[in-house]
């Protein structure tokens, strides 16, 4: 019984990490219908940026992410403005090809700069700290912070989207970019701002990626897969759905691993397929589209 409860708790906490991986992807898809195949590599890139900032400035990763976030916002903004905006249109293929190419460029670029060695973000005692819940169950402080950060990211994204003029412009541009221009909205700029925002979310995801496990330049595509699964399980266009999707994935993996450690990854994919079979549009699809 305790074992089952522990699996559920650890699964929900792991889901927080997947939700963070997925939130940026969900945001980008929601605003500009862009399927970003480089998303996982961008998380890894952001982890290296945090690593460099932390080492060069002698900062703790939690402080380094505050320095890295505006830099990453700018990179995302420029990337969208000069490159990705040109690929958007009726044809879905160009953005897929370009982000696929970007994925390869980022991986190879990181290999050149940092070699294939594993890296890690170091933050001292907090990495191994845990809180005992009694009954033999303990939760790690970093996994707990991951989940709390995921919830905070989702809450803030929802506030931005549904309570601010910027969010209104995001939703309007997503609905109808042509008419959005008639409202004085520069859709290229709005898309670039959305990508900048997604990069800030990517920075937060990268922080926990690097604190919880080793990373190297090649691990991006696997994170992309988890992010995709979380977004699709949750339903396109819903941030809360993305959080739920991440948690479903985390639960499935953790419970699968308890049954047999080799089943961890497979269980996640099976849960994904099961949700798709039962609810093809995900758990919380947006009413429209």
């Amino acid at each position, binding site marked *: 019984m305790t074992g089952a409860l522990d699996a559920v708790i650890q699964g929900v906490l792991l889901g927080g990490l997947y939700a963070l991986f997925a939130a940026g992807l969900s945001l980008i898809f929601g605003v500009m219908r862009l399927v970003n195949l480089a998303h996982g590599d961008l998380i890894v890139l952001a982890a290296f940026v945090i690593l460099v900032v932390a080492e060069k400035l002698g900062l703790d990763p939690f402080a380094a992410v505050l320095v890295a976030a505006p830099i990453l916002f700018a990179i995302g903004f420029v990337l969208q403005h000069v490159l990705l905006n040109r690929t958007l249109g009726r044809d879905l293929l160009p953005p897929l090809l370009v982000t696929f190419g970007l994925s390869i460029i980022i991986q190879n670029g990181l290999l050149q700069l940092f070699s294939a060695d594993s890296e890690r973000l170091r933050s001292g005692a907090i990495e191994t700290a845990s809180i005992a819940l009694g009954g033999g169950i303990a939760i790690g402080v970093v996994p707990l912070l991951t989940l709390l950060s995921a919830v905070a990211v989702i809450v803030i994204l929802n506030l931005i989207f549904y309570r601010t*003029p910027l969010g*209104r*412009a995001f*939703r*309007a541009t*997503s*609905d*109808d970019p*042509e*008419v*959005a*221009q*008639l*409202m*004085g*909205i*520069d*859709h290229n700029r709005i898309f670039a701002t959305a990508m900048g925002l997604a990069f800030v979310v990517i920075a937060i995801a990268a922080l926990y990626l690097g604190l919880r496990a080793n990373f190297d330049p090649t691990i991006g595509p696997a994170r992309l897969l988890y992010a995709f699964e979380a977004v699709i399980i949750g339903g396109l266009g819903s941030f809360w759905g993305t959080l739920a999707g991440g948690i479903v994935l985390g639960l499935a993996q953790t419970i699968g691993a308890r049954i047999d450690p080799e089943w961890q990854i497979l269980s996640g994919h099976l849960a994904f397929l099961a949700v798709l079979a039962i609810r093809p549009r995900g758990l919380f699809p*947006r009413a*429209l589209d």
Partner: protein
Amino acid sequence: MALLETCNLQAFYGDFQALYGIDTRLEAGETIAIIGANGAGKSTFLKAVAGLVRRPAASVLFDRQPIGALSAADVVKLGIALVPEGRRLFPSLSVEENLLIGGHGRKLGGPWTLDRVYSLFPILKERRSQAAPTLSGGQQQMAAIGRALMSNPRVLLCDEISLGLAPIIIADIYATLPRIKAEGTSVVLVEQDIAQAIKVSDRVYCFQEGRLSLVGRPRELTREQIHDAYFGS
């Protein structure tokens, strides 16, 4: 002094030429009507003025300044707002959000606020928190006009605001035009409902296959002239 002028305006969709050298003029305070059969180029004309269709830089003059090189987002900031054909409200926004976003890039001060739009179209206030697609056709048209007014335009471009609406609703909407004009807004009406358009216009332009086929003051034009200009003779 013309507020808005087009000089030899041409527009293309790829290789297809949709407008051939259109000359028009709108004086401050005027209403002009653009009529013509389906496919004559009326919507293309409004889109070219609004900046949604590429056009030569000097072919559109606003306040004597060429604005043909500006993006649609910049044109609306100068004071030209388009009510697009088919209303095209933002479906995932509420009625009130649709109105508010009309003032998104607003640089111009002016008479139109949310409250003023609600007093022009009281039904929209009742429906303010509903999703836009739940409105009736007439209410959607009112919201589309209100959304355009929120940018405080000096020129309001209206593309077939009577399309698909019952006569009584059309009359309601047209009844608001004098109040809009009273705020100093000049109006360009594209209409297939010729009678309605002619009644409220100072001048009528008839398009035929991308060319101007007739220009004149409504009372100076005969029924036959309009018929020929509309359908070709």
